[in-house]
């Protein structure tokens, strides 16, 4: 009973955070960001269902997101012309069903194999659908896309969804439901088998499961939730274009899930939050945020193969053994120079970008025409790098001693 209670406490906290956010930050910008986050969370979680849990690397996941979104916009138009009559709160479900249908069709032939073959098929289908969307103008609206108005539907308990914050509450509820169901899916036999097939399809076949069918089920579920995200996108922006089902969107969701951490349920949520924040906040400060995103992504793949969630989970052993505190100081000693190095590096990149003009960087006036500023940055970067390199062995040592299996205890057992 107690674990169940603990688990539901986590979910209540999640719901509380989702519903409480707009009370803490109520500016228009914040609500816009929250809406984007909500969409991104569902989308990234659905992607993780494929790659993290099912081991299927997809380069065309935006297809289900986009198709769901397009159908959602068309449904909104139908509501406007009173062809159909229902509240717009169910629109994400329409998107989800379309995503599911598309996934059933595409999954019927693409889930035959995982790995490279699957990745290539998904790439091909992604390109195919994106290119066709420019050809079939009557449904996809060409480059301009299609748009609708969400306020024509019958009011839901008096709410007519004129404001973004109303959409946010709707999105929050959908995010909660979708997250809950995606989590529950991981606990079902189908979800468990998806993990097994990811790790060793041959063994799964030997105990009598069709690897293909297991993949197909995950694939369909993933398409369904991606469609829900697409439906929410349609509700939030009231328009959708070809860009939402092409390779750019597919790539972005891969970035989100990977940076957040594959294999951990919470990973994609972290990734979605980080990327949305970068997208909307960092882009205010610098035009180069995509470059930084690229650098961050490559560094993540190189040094944190399990993403941010994996980085946090790495500390589990130390935490359980109560040695987390002993890591704090080494982290600080190495972290400060590392941060300095990154800052100096970013300053130099920005100076290169602002060729021959003065600008402000973190409140400091910098001028790329001034050689002294260059020198300063270079010196700071060099010293920070050296400091980092110097202190890294200490951190490693501290890490090992915090994680090492208690040698004294072991010896006692041996003797």
């Amino acid at each position, binding site marked *: 009973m107690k674990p169940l209670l603990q688990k539901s406490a986590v979910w209540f906290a999640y719901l509380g955070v989702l519903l409480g956010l707009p009370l803490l930050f109520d500016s228009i910008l914040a609500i816009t960001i929250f809406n984007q986050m909500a969409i991104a969370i569902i989308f990234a979680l659905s992607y993780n269902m494929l*790659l993290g849990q099912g*081991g299927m*690397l997809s*380069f065309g996941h935006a297809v289900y997101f986009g198709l769901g979104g397009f159908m959602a916009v068309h449904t909104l138009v139908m509501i406007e012309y009173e062809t159909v009559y229902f509240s717009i709160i169910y629109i994400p479900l329409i998107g989800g069903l379309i995503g599911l249908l598309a996934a059933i069709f595409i999954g019927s*032939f693409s889930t*035959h*194999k995982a*790995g*490279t*073959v699957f*990745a*290539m*098929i998904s*790439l*091909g*289908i992604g*390109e*195919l659908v994106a*290119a*066709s969307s420019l*050809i*079939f*103008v*009557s*449904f996809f609206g060409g480059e301009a896309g299609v748009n609708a108005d969400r306020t024509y539907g019958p009011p839901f308990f008096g709410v007519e969804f004129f404001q973004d914050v109303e959409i946010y509450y709707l999105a929050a509820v959908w995010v909660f439901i979708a997250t809950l169901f995606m989590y529950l899916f991981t606990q079902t036999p189908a979800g468990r088998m998806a993990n097994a097939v990811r790790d060793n399809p041959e063994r799964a076949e030997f105990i009598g499961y069709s690897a293909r069918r297991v993949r197909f089920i995950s694939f369909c579920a993933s398409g369904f939730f991606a469609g829900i995200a697409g439906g929410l996108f349609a509700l939030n922006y009231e328009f959708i274009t070809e860009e939402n089902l092409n*390779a750019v969107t597919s*790539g972005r969701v*891969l*970035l989100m899930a*990977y940076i957040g951490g594959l294999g951990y349920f919470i990973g994609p949520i972290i990734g979605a939050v980080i990327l949305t924040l970068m997208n909307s906040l960092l882009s205010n400060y610098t035009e*180069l945020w*995509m*470059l930084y*995103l*690229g*650098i961050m*992504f*490559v560094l993540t*793949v*190189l040094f944190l*193969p399990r993403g941010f969630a994996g980085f946090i989970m790495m500390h589990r052993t130390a935490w359980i053994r109560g040695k987390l505190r002993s890591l704090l100081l080494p982290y600080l000693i190495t972290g400060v120079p590392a941060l300095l190095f990154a800052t100096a590096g970013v300053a130099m*990149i920005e100076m*290169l*970008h602002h060729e021959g003009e003065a600008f402000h960087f973190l409140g400091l006036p910098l001028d790329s025409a001034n050689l002294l500023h260059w020198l300063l940055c270079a010196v700071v970067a060099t010293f920070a790098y050296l400091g980092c390199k110097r202190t890294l062995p200490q951190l490693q040592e501290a890490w090992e001693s915090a994680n090492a299996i208690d040698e004294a205890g072991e010896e006692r057992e041996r003797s």
Partner: protein
Amino acid sequence: MLEVFIFSTLNGLVTGLLLFMLASGLTLIFSMMGVLNFAHASFYMLGAYFAYSISLHLGFWAGLIFAPLIVGLLGAEIERFALRRVHAHGHVAELVFTFGLAFLIEESVQFFWGPDTKNYQSPDILDFPLFTLFGQEFSAYRGFMIAISVGIFVGLYYVLTRSRIGIIIQAAITHPHTVANLGHNVPFIFMGVFGVGTALAGVAGVIAGPVLTTFPGMAVVLGSIVFVIVVIGGLGSLGGAFIASLMIGLLQSYAIASNVGMPDLLNLLGLEFSRDHPLTDLWTLTLPQVAPILPFLLLVLVLIFRPTGIAGKREQ
């Protein structure tokens, strides 16, 4: 009709051979490391940009020599310091890494050279019509492109099958441990092949830059098509990649030059649809319109019905 046919064949040949220059490196790298290098077309783009910058100071020919060298060195360094590291985490991590690399290279190119199209010109010395057929000119530069591509194909084939280095490389692909036991430095061979593969992509970029325009999206335009070729040709097969490259090049070229479409088919069948039919886009589809998606259609079909491609080996 005949002139259209001849010129689309020639143009298809140019595109196909260009694609092969990219595909050959990609397929070599794949057979070695078992990973499809998503960033391969990005090295092609880097080749074009480096050559552009060099050509501003030293002229086109210096660019043709130095740009691929720089790209190859860069590729080798990336293999040594990054890809090798990711290799330990499995194929998916590798694929994801090269994907991130492609993203990063595109952003870096925009950072260093700006988002606009660069005025990268073919050399004046090749700025004359090679021959004139039916009143249409075939530029000498395109002839030069064909010559370079064929030269590289022949050279590559010769090195891989006839030289000692080629034999060691081939052995390292199938039996890396045995080759290592015989005293060869296998990681170094891998790095070298990766470098040569990316350098080939760089050469393709240098000679394609003036014709296909040099802009930050040029990698994306070609990138997925090269993937298609490598898969259709059969992963790891150089001969298959050659056939598939020519096939895709010619297919696209013919499709663009042709002016048939659904209306013709419907006329042939004696059917007619009104303009406001809900599927009107489908009934008015023409072949040039669908030309860009033909390779991907082919890719999906090949993967469903013959996952090993034209010349791929049966999967173990």
